[in-house]
């Protein structure tokens, strides 16, 4: 039975789940990737930063069957819309559904968390020496974390025109090591930022 909108949370880690995803794509008009795991592979995607041999090592006894590497849903199927973030924003979810229903184009926020952070008149955490991911992270969360005194950890992933090199340079000037920056870039978006990360590693 075809459905109008399919919301897919998470990303496949077994072959059965890949098959299920393909079937969902076939049976729906609009497929929405809901949340960071579906968008970028999310936190579980961190396992892609280590070798499978190391991943399995933590289990004593029976060696576990290996799961698939968490990838963005777009690696397997066409994704019509993405709701970024961990967690995604409830407001954006309602916006998206409304836009689809009334036939309006839903627009991704192509600007950084810093834009919303400045609008809320928060003091800049980067300037205070925090490793803040705001400058390269897609807005839409109303700068939730910085507004609560915590540095952005990049859960919404990078926006289209993010200035990675500028951000990395600022962080280095603040005294953060390459290792720390690579870690911050990996936590939510390893699969999306692989190129930047390998550039940084070689630099």
């Amino acid at each position, binding site marked *: 039975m075809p459905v109008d909108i399919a919301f897919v949370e998470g990303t496949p880690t077994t072959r059965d789940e890949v098959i299920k995803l393909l079937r969902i794509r076939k049976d729906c008009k609009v497929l929405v990737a809901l949340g960071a795991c579906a968008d970028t592979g999310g936190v*579980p995607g961190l396992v892609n930063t280590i070798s499978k041999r190391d991943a399995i090592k933590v289990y004593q006894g029976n060696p576990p069957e290996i799961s698939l590497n968490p990838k963005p849903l777009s690696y397997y199927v066409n994704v019509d819309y993405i709701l970024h973030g961990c967690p995604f924003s409830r407001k954006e979810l309602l916006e998206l559904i409304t836009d689809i229903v009334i036939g309006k184009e839903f627009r991704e926020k192509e600007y950084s968390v810093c834009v919303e952070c400045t609008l809320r008149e928060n003091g800049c955490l980067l300037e205070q020496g925090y490793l803040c991911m705001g400058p390269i992270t897609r807005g839409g969360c109303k700068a939730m974390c910085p507004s*609560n005194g915590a540095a952005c950890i990049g859960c919404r992933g990078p926006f289209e025109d993010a200035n990675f090199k500028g951000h990395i340079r600022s962080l280095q000037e603040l005294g953060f090591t390459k290792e720390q920056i690579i870690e911050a870039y990996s936590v939510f978006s390893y699969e999306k930022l692989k190129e930047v990360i390998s550039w940084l590693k070689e630099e």
Partner: protein
Amino acid sequence: MAERRIRIEEITKIEGHANLTIEIESNEVKRVIFGVHEGSRYFEAFMKGRFYTYIHHLAGRICGICTVAHELASLLAVEKALGFEVPDEIHALRKLMLYSSHIQSHILHLYFLALPDYACAESAVELARKDSRSLELVKKAFAIKEAMNYMTSIIGGRAVHPCTLVPGGHSAKIDKEDIERYAKKMKEIYPLLLETAELFLSIEYPEFERESEYVALVDGIKIPLYEGNIGTTRVRFSPKEYMKHLREWTVDYSSAKHSLVDNRDYMVGALARLNLNPYLRDDAKEIAEKYSIRFPTHKVAWINVAQALENLHYAQEALEIVDSLRKGYSGVPSKPKTLDGEGIAALEAPRGLLIHHYRFSRGRCTYANIITPTAMNTENIERNLREYISQIVEMDDDFIKTEAEKIIRAYDPCISCSVHVTRVG
């Protein structure tokens, strides 16, 4: 191949994916397999090497429902490992978040996952369509859930993956007004929690009972969620000694581990907490007496009853803490005393005991071990099902399926939590 094989391909109305296989020969239950078929998520593997400031953020992502419990257990273990000094107000704030998130999780389970079984409905959506009374019930459930999420977000910034928790403190300033908003909401919603308790205590549950071990935090005076020793009906031990008592192993048909405590199968969660801690506050106690509910009990389906009573208890506990926080909180998180060390924390998640254990060297995680409630319950679920199905083995397949699902759902299993670690082929 067994003579009679009953299989539920996908158990619905639980968190995540699991199946059930029952094999019967000459009216004797030979095997009961509660299989978890979600992919392994390797959290403990990729936590290794991460700086301590990230650990609780990662841990929180194990689960979207008990995210507060995971973040807190993780933070406590990190703080113990690295010698943070955490002021009492911070612990009080965290407890407030834990109480509202427990009630939120219990409400989700009671109304949306458990109730349909007892109201002859496939789901809460179907239930809402039945009649106006049922619709009101579902609306009430949403109202409580929304209120609890709102309260958690007052302290945590947001209800799912709160962002204010940091090692050694709290990143946001919490005003007197915030605390008052929390208290006001709790008082406002309390009558609905009473109605919820009346409803879930008056339901007729499967009478099935089997004596097993129970494990929960204990402190001899309260029903502790945030700190305490680990207790069973026979022993008490410090969380540090968990490895001496809890034995985990993997099975070939499931990606969730199985576990025994001192060689006995055990249950964790609301019923275990009330069985081990006979300290319900007055309202909960009164309503339990009204419906002749007594603890300890070995009636498995009474997990639902225990959750409904816990809601009242924790609401009152939270209001008591509010009184100690009248001034609010603003302060700078403390710094670690050392960057090398080992920390173990045990905390009660809504579904039961949760253990986080880490080692750090130069601030980076070198070892992580997390034991979740659902992994602790799996062995107990199977043994209880085996016993219960033996009692009803002469009934038809559909009846057995329905009853088995009632028992499984009572545990409120969370498969995503259970497979944060391992999958065995």
